């Protein structure tokens, strides 16, 4: 190690009122630093009531100017709170902001320890570590990259639609990609929305139409993103536009093809398996876009080679059996993921008999059942298609808050259950039971709705249902579904015979969430929901700059929250677009080609595709714009050829020795 020039370090110990000074002897710490760390380069050590106050900052700025400080250590709170503050202060005084180091003696010392002496000693060690570290800090410059003003929104549910509209209305172009033939998502399947009970379609379809006709929105339905590369500001996205076998330019959406198509299949998607559709179809009347798609798996022509009824009858000759999947490449600056949720598969809770007992329905099935546009035109009937139930049991938390399935609360099921109760009551006059663990109606006007449903005479049983069976024990149970449940309020076992059971099934991450996450370079929580950058302060951003998550893709939530998130993400996107360029944290890894032996050990380590190997020169290179700064490759390089700014080996080793007070020992030990 060659001798480097002596840095001039200033140490500033904050009292934070009594938050720190109450436990840590800040004066002692400051004096100790001045005295013991002098040889390290500490030329001044001060303590002050509130370093983060403007006066405190001025103190630092003044010293930088007058004492010619080249490094600054502030012993105060967590860097997550005030690192920026002091970096800016340094910058104002002409010192590179990255030459400032925060030593957390509040969150890590005064707030968590009780013995003053011990706390003070620890504070000294922490300061010592920070001093040793800051000396090794290097001046860094933020990296600026330009932002492509176009945005990709993946998922055409209400969250995605909202997000797309906000950005489009601000005058920027949006590509809205939807996997299904039409946008609308789950909300389009619902009949009513809680707690206001306004018709789901009535409030959704105008938005769908707006999105479908907006000059700034390119709508790509029946399409899926298949590849993503690049980084914030300039993502390159490949989208697979699946063959519709319908020429969009010629199709008028008249629906004759669908009418004439002889092939009837169960609609597993839009009708939740409760109704039928044709082999060529538009999922529902208000579909956007309204031209149909042909389902190759079921189309008689594709299966048997004859039929072509749709082609014969199409007035505009829009049917094209030779249409091929199409790959579309676009460049965008930001990406919003609104990929939504899957409904929990209630067949997994076999003791509730769904799939075995005909008159057990899932929430989504019931939505279709009660929907005027649904298979029964809104008549709430049993699976025989005609009998109206006289008694209905609604079971909450199916697949949620259950360690056998999902531990989390699916948020919407309580209100959904209440909504169902109201609808059943209103349309059939049947006796309705709600079986719940806890009633969760925390949101504007939600609990009022609960009160209303109570007053309507719905019966509530607090307890987790043990089983739903058709094995009658008594005469009154014959031919009914019996709900076996412990009534925890009356501490009684009850057997309640009903005609129909509705399972308020939970929400689950999309079955392909993990792969999708990988493709976009974001991670999933253990539950499988996409992980936000910060659970509270940054709920729509992700760890990958330029990628945002909204709606149920991020976690179970109701329509208002989904819409709010859609808008929130748009605001974040617009902020980036309007800045025209984005500054990236200069915490990056880089390869010293002199030392790189091309062993390729690091090549498999980067999940952000920042590492590339040059066969010709047999060296590895790291793309700074793609690098997220985790430092895994730095730690992995067996030749020590990769170094990382902000968290270099020198910095961390120095901090280790500092924390262990090694730096107090005579030099050349």
């Amino acid at each position, binding site marked *: 190690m060659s001798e480097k020039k002596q840095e001039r370090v200033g140490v500033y110990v904050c009292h934070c009122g009594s938050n720190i000074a109450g436990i840590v002897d800040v004066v002692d710490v400051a004096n100790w630093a001045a005295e013991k760390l002098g040889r390290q380069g500490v030329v001044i050590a001060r303590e002050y009531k509130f370093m983060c106050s403007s006066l405190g900052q001025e103190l630092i700025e003044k010293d930088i100017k007058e004492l010619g400080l080249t490094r600054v250590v502030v012993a105060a709170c967590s860097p997550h709170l005030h690192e920026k503050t002091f970096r800016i202060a340094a910058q104002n005084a002409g010192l590179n902001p990255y030459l400032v180091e925060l030593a957390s003696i509040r969150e890590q010392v005064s707030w968590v320890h009780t013995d003053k002496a011990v706390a003070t000693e620890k504070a000294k060690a922490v300061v010592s570590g920070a001093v040793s570290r800051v000396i090794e800090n290097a001046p860094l410059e933020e990296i600026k990259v330009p932002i492509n003003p176009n945005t990709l929104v993946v998922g055409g549910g209400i969250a995605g639609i909202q997000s797309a509209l906000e950005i489009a209305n601000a005058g920027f172009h949006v590509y809205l990609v939807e996997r299904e033939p039409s946008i609308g998502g789950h909300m389009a399947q619902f009949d009513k929305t809680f707690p206001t009970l306004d018709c789901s379609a009535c409030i959704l379809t105008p938005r769908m139409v707006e999105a479908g006709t907006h000059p700034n929105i390119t709508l790509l339905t029946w399409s899926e993103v298949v590849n993503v590369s690049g980084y914030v500001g300039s993502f390159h996205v490949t989208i697979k536009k699946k063959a519709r076998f319908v020429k969009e330019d010629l199709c008028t959406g008249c629906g004759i093809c669908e009418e004439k198509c002889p092939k009837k299949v169960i609609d597993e998607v839009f009708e939740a398996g409760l109704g039928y559709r044709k082999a060529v179809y538009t999922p529902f009347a208000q579909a956007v876009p309204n031209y149909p798609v042909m389902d190759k798996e079921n189309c008689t022509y594709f299966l048997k080679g004859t039929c072509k009824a749709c082609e014969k009858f199409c007035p505009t000759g829009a049917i094209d059996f030779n249409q091929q999947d199409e790959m579309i490449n676009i460049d965008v600056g930001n990406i919003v993921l609104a990929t939504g949720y899957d409904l929990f598969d209630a067949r997994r809770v076999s003791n509730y008999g769904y799939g075995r007992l005909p008159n057990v329905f899932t929430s989504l099935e019931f939505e279709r059942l009660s929907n005027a546009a649904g298979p029964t035109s809104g008549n709430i009937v049993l699976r025989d298609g005609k009998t109206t139930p006289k008694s209905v049991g609604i079971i909450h938390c199916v697949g949620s808050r259950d360690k056998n399935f999902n531990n989390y609360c699916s948020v919407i099921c309580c209100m959904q259950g209440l909504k169902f109760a109201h609808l059943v009551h209103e349309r059939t006059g049947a006796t309705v039971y709600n079986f719940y663990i806890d009633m969760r109606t925390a949101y504007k006007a939600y609990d009022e709705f609960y009160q209303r449903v109570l007053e309507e005479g719905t019966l509530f049983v607090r307890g987790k249902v043990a089983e739903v069976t058709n094995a009658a024990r008594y005469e009154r149970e014959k031919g009914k579904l019996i709900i076996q449940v412990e009534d925890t309020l009356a501490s009684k076992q009850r057997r309640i015979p009903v005609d129909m059971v509705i399972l308020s099934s939970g929400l689950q991450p999309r079955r392909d969430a993990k792969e999708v996450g990988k493709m976009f370079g974001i991670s999933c929580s253990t539950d499988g929901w996409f992980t936000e950058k910060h659970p509270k302060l940054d709920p729509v951003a992700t760890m990958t700059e330029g990628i945002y998550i909204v709606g149920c893709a991020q976690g179970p939530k109701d329509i208002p929250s989904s819409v709010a998130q859609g808008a929130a993400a748009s605001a974040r996107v617009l902020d980036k677009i309007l800045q025209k360029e984005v500054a990236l944290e200069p915490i990056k890894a880089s390869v010293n080609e002199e030392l790189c*032996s091309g062993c*390729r*050990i690091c090549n*498999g380590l980067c999940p952000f595709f920042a590492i590339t190997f040059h066969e010709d020169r047999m060296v590895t290179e790291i793309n700074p714009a793609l690098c997220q700064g985790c430092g895994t490759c730095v730690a992995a390089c*067996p*030749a020590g050829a990769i170094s990382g700014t902000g968290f270099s*080996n020198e910095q961390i*080793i120095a901090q280790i020795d500092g924390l262990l007070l090694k730096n107090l020992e005579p030099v050349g030990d």
Partner: protein
Amino acid sequence: MTTNGKPRFAMYWAASCGGCEIAVLNTHEKILDVDANFEVVFWPVAMDAKYKDVEAMEDGSILITLFNGGIRNDENEHIAKLLRKKSKFLVSFGSCACEGCIPGLANLSPVGEIVHTAFSTITTDNPHEIYPRVSFDVPEGELHIPKLSKILRPLDQVVDVDYYMPGCPPESHQIAAVIDLLIQVINGKAELPPKGTVIGAGHSTVCDECTRTRNVKLIKEFKRIQDIAPVDPTLCLLEQGIPCNGPATRSGCTARCPQAGAQCIGCYGPAEGVMDYGARLITAFSSVIDANEPAEIEKILDGIPDPTGQVYRFNLAGSLLKANANAFKLKE
């Protein structure tokens, strides 16, 4: 300052095997240049000389000393300090002096055990458990043998070192090159590199000189080379699951072992600026493991039967931890 005008040259072996000497002689006629340009004043292997002669020399009167072998006893230490005093340039020559090498592996055991192993295990016929004594009275007087130190130390842990020349032994072509350089220097035709430089080696690692093809490595199983048949002659050994130390070992040997079909065992030590050689190998091997479940990872790691020996074969004494805890703890 010299008797015959020629600068003085010395070479010494401490705890080493003598291979370094042979490597020097292996430079063939190049050795004549040494004789032609230097006055060899001290070289126990090659010529007769007494310590007192060296002690008598003027401080700094030897231009350059190639010191091979680690410091294992008080004699080694004494001579190391002596030659430091007498030499202008002290070169830590070979793996033993640089990082402890194979003798350094003795740092895994307490001295007592080492002596015991040497003097009373089945490999030794020592029915009366007779052990070496530091001092022993014989009719002729009192005999002395050097005292062992707790652990073996590389040269620079005992004295200040000017240059390092790694390798077990250093490759003869590298030695020749260094000799050439020295001669050029004394004839004023070249500059000496800055103090502390590693000479006679590259800056990168063995892979840099290895011609085997490499891809992204995903290892499901580590195997010892003898358990693989046949070993792919052109593919990276590590990719074949053979723990090859090449990725972390300093270049300069022209990747002899991997080229000959054997894995690198790391005799050239760490690459430029590396603090702990073993750490680099730990991360190299673990980075290529293709598993996330602890149990599965452990199963894969079982394929490396002696991890400590694997990553510290040559570097133990020069590593951050230097030795096994027991070697330190041993009380006298």
